[in-house]
């Protein structure tokens, strides 16, 4: 038996599966609930409402500057919980592996998941592994689901945005999306392009506790980017959003790569950023809180909700003109010239 490749046997539920569980999953993801190896995890009675979410991760390449598919799977689901104001409790982890995947790659991913769980304080409490025949998958697909607790009095929703509210973006745009696209294209750039994947629940909890009632809406602008998330907020709240072109934080190397590929940072995926819609009188306070955290040190006020045409997002350009910002249609494709 070749020990360094994933075999169909590893998903069979038999001896090879057991080996995988003890030599990888329990070794790197260990906690009392997971260790019990029961058919489901029991989470003791919690106070508050439950938030529940799920997401699947199929990113190619599976390793990229700033992270890997495993970290992404932990952070992404934590962030989805955090965007409703929930305190993440635990995650499940389901892997679909392609026969022939390098065992060393899987180990690296599981180590990375373990690190992400420890750093964020959110354990994996349930899991599953399946193996599909070579050619029927692409190395590894991951699904994580997550449960969180929403404390009494917390109500974060895009429906809660009000006219006059301020939109804060917690950091620079497009870092994750452009890193993946340039990796796929084999383009190397001067300067460092790196995914921004990180968990935001600590930042969110600080905002919710230090300015109670001040945060109305939170969104993580993943696929579709800031442009698409703002369109969703505008549509759900029945308000318009006006942005200032020059307020949008973009790293110079990201901007350079976008110029080369003909892409707009507004439409690129982020994996460690949130948009916060905040009461105007508390906006500076929220910004200061963000600036005091590692996740939000480059946060900026990028726009404002207005009572304009419902669902419309407009950006003011440096020449005093304006343009409408629509949601993303399809995958962003690089242009010819």
């Amino acid at each position, binding site marked *: 038996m070749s020990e360094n490749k994933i075999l169909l046997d590893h998903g069979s539920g038999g001896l090879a599966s057991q080996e995988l569980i003890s030599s990888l999953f329990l070794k790197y993801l260990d906690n009392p609930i997971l260790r019990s190896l029961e058919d489901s995890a029991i989470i003791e009675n919690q106070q508050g409402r439950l938030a529940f979410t799920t997401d699947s991760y199929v990113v190619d390449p599976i390793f990229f500057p700033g992270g890997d598919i495993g970290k992404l799977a932990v952070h992404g689901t934590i962030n989805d919980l955090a965007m409703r104001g929930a305190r993440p409790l635990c995650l499940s982890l389901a892997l679909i592996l392609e026969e022939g995947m390098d065992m060393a790659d899987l180990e690296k991913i599981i180590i990375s998941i373990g690190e992400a769980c420890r750093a964020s304080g959110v354990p994996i409490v349930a899991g599953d592994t399946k193996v599909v025949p070579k050619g029927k998958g692409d190395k590894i697909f991951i699904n994580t689901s997550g449960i969180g607790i929403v404390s009494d009095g917390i109500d974060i929703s895009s429906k809660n945005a009000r006219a006059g509210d301020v939109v804060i973006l917690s950091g620079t745009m497009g870092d994750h999306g452009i890193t993946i696209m340039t990796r796929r294209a084999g383009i190397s750039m001067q300067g460092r392009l790196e995914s921004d994947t990180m968990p935001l629940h600590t930042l969110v909890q600080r905002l919710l506790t230090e300015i109670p009632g001040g945060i109305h809406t939170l969104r993580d602008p993943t696929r579709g980017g800031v442009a698409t998330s703002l369109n969703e907020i505008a549509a759900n709240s029945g308000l318009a959003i006006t942005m200032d072109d020059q307020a949008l934080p973009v790293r110079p190397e990201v901007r350079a790569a976008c110029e080369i590929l003909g892409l707009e940072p507004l439409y690129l995926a982020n994996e460690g950023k949130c948009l916060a819609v905040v009461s105007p009188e508390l906006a500076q306070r929220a910004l200061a809180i963000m600036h005091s955290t590692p996740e939000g040190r480059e946060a900026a006020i990028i726009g404002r909700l207005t009572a304009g045409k419902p669902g419309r997002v407009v950006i003011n350009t440096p020449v005093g*003109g304006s343009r409408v910002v629509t949601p993303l249609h399809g995958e962003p494709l690089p242009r010819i010239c």
Partner: protein
Amino acid sequence: MKYLDEFRDSALARPLVAELQKAVTRPLRVMEICGSHTMAIFRNGLRSILPEGYTLISGPGCPVCVTSASHMDAFIAMADRPGVRVAIFGDLFRVPGTDGSLANASSRGAKVDIVYSPMDALDLAVRHPEDLIVFLGVGFETTTPGIAATILAAKNRNVTNFTVFSTQKVMPPPLIALLDDPGLKIDGLLCPGHVSSIIGAGAYQPLVDKYHLACVVAGFETTDLLNSLILLARQVGRGEAKVENTYKRAVNWEGNLRAARMVDEIFEPADMEWRGLGVIPGSGLAIRSGYADFDAVVRLGITLPAAREAKGCRCGEILKGMSIPTECPLFNTRCTPGTPIGPCMVSSEGTCAAYHKYGRD
């Protein structure tokens, strides 16, 4: 960022906006030829601050948009052939032919790879010796030298499974075809930046001489565009017609002679079919017989199928500047970026895509 921030500086741009208002002394119609200009004008919000009487018409300068339906059908049929791997720039992926797109072909198993440069397609050929790689050459002078260089590299490296299907187009001929149409009334041309870096600003002098048009070569940043729109308005106001160049950091009068020589080594002028404009003599480039081994048309014996263009689609008139997207019955109803019917909607450079993305009220 150097060469970008200076040209986007609002402190420099705002006075130009005031200047533009003053420069317009009579109504004028200017065609921006290049799709990248169309997008840049929208992105900067320049349409929202154009002075009264200043009309911008979008011309035929988006390479994807002017690719004929019969060429798209040929591309798709070729991608469906076993043993063929098609390499394309991303814009082409969703362009509809008579029946479906390369995206549809890909979903039924055709090998379609999106590349960022023709050199990437050559690498694909090396990595996939079992396949015949066909790079779909869809573009103007901007992309032709890179394709010529890739064919030369393939020859030098003795890569025998790399070919190009050339529908490469050249810039002045379609403008002449348009200007000879009495239905088109324009006073000036905002001339393309990238194309002009190859063909030179001097390429527009014949248009000035024959049609008495104001011509200004422009870059793509805020101040480039404002400055060029001002110069066009001034020329028209004074009744002048000359070539001016505001993109001197990239464009000279003669063009890139080295690139031109390389293109001439590989390609020869050919008649070419344009979407909406029909066949224009000498408006395309075919691979010379000396390089037939790299010519997909020869290697695969391709003949162009007859194609019908989508019913109701006004891309043809829009490309001629005789209609605007909002006048098309399909615009934003059946034809959207998610479900494009005409090529002007699918390309990010397309006039309809620009109107959809930035132009709504």
